């Protein structure tokens, strides 16, 4: 196991996996409490449409998936705020639209469908230096947004109280969806379209079972995401399982343990 650490491709895989897990862990507390897990799924499929568009235009898929997913995230938030439709309805519309567009782009990009499969399940070992820079950039941007944590958590707790205190809640909603979109796109390469939403939900869900405060929940989610990535990659290497799937299985295992703890010890 240890000698593999010497290979640059494995170092990149490990680093990318850990950075993505930190992104997912930090965001998952918000995703769980704001009930955004469906948004995660919808945006993952938008990312897929963006990738398909990239394959069709024979451009680097990431370059097109980024703006495409960002646009869908903002559109969902806009439609929700302007129409009074519930969020899951707005997401459902754009979810279907994205998958349909993705199918059209892929059909037109015949011959590249194999590449598209790579994006469905993702591959840590295929992470290139460019992808790593992209993940690193999004993590740095996240650090810049860290001062907003308190205001975001406040509005997550109670939107009206935050509004009464003049927190720019609407602006923050857009920022959060936009950042979610960025994090999703860079994570898609690593985890794949089908599983990326798990990164945004499971660590937070497990942490919710054990945390008594929102700060505690956030830290626990980070811890779970981080250890699931280490555990999953190790298992993936030992058993020759797909990397993204192994990490998600490790997350699910941690969630199961947290659930057993709350169910059988009264929890908290």
């Amino acid at each position, binding site marked *: 196991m240890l000698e593999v650490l010497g290979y640059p491709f494995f170092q990149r895989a490990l680093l990318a996996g850990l950075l993505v897990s930190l992104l997912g862990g930090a965001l998952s507390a918000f995703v769980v*409490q704001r009930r955004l897990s469906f948004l995660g799924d919808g945006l993952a499929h938008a990312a897929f449409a963006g990738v398909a568009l990239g394959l069709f235009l024979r451009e680097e898929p990431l370059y097109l998936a980024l703006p495409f997913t960002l646009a869908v995230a903002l559109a969902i938030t806009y439609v929700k705020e302007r129409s009074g439709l519930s969020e899951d309805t707005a997401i459902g519309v754009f979810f279907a639209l994205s998958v349909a567009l993705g199918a059209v782009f892929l059909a037109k990009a015949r011959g590249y469908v194999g590449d598209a499969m790579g994006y469905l399940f993702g591959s840590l070992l295929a992470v290139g230096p460019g992808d790593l820079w992209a993940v690193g950039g999004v993590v740095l941007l996240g650090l810049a947004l860290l001062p907003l*944590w*308190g*205001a975001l*958590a*406040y509005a*997550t*707790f*109670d*939107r*009206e*109280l935050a*509004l*009464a*205190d*003049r*927190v720019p809640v609407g602006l923050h909603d857009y920022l959060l969806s936009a950042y979610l979109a960025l994090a999703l796109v860079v994570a898609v390469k690593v985890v794949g379209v089908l599983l990326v939403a798990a990164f945004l939900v499971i660590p937070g869900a497990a942490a*919710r079972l054990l*945390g*008594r*405060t*929102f*700060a*505690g*929940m*956030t830290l626990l989610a980070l811890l779970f995401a981080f250890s699931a990535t280490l555990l999953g990659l190790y298992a993936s290497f030992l058993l020759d399982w797909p990397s993204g799937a192994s990490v998600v299985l490790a997350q699910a295992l941690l969630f199961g343990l947290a659930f057993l703890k709350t169910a059988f010890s009264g929890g*908290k």
Partner: protein
Amino acid sequence: MWAVETQGLTVRFGQYQALEDVSLKVPEGSFVAVVGPNGAGKSTLLKALLGLVPFRGEVRIFGRPLAQADPFWFGYVPQIKTFDHTFPALALELVVSGLRRAWPFRVGEKERERALEALGRVGALELAHRPLGRLSGGQLQRVYLARALVRRPRLLLLDEPATGVDRLGEVDLYRHLEAYQEETGATILMITHDWEAAHHASHVLVLNRRVIGFGPPERALSEECLRQAFGHLGHEHALFLGGGRA
């Protein structure tokens, strides 16, 4: 200076007019009881003063246009606690959020002291480390009051703060509000359905979409005003009215 001054304040929800041409001048340091039937627009009035609902007309808070009022001037206890009951939060954290206008990641030593003191004053010290989602209605009411008071606001906007609070707690609540007011000169607007409590206020605002009466309790709570606000008062109501005033 007026603590609250509104000019032609009108709030519409679609076709429905919840408040119509409300013009008020609330003197600084007064204790205003706001009364009126269900759906009269009482909560809507407080929300307008907080900028939570769009309105036409003009609102000034301590002489400043609403948009320029400092959020820390306001202490608000909402009627309906809309918070996410699954959000992992301790009562203490909610009180600290009142000091910060943000949710605390870590509670500092000074903040903890102030928050505990505020909880103590409303008789809720033992609730500090309890999960918020599991508190009873009256317990929540006390924690929200502590949250509103901890920032030492100049203007307290209380939407039925005594609802759900036990009899002793209610007496404590009024005593405490009076003490706070004496100490700080703050202005209080309190919505209540308890006409007896309203009699202890310095001013009473009788509201039913428009201002029916505003002034000292004896005047605003006159039978004439109440009849106008609540519609025809039957025999029993008239009896109750008499009892309330005794």
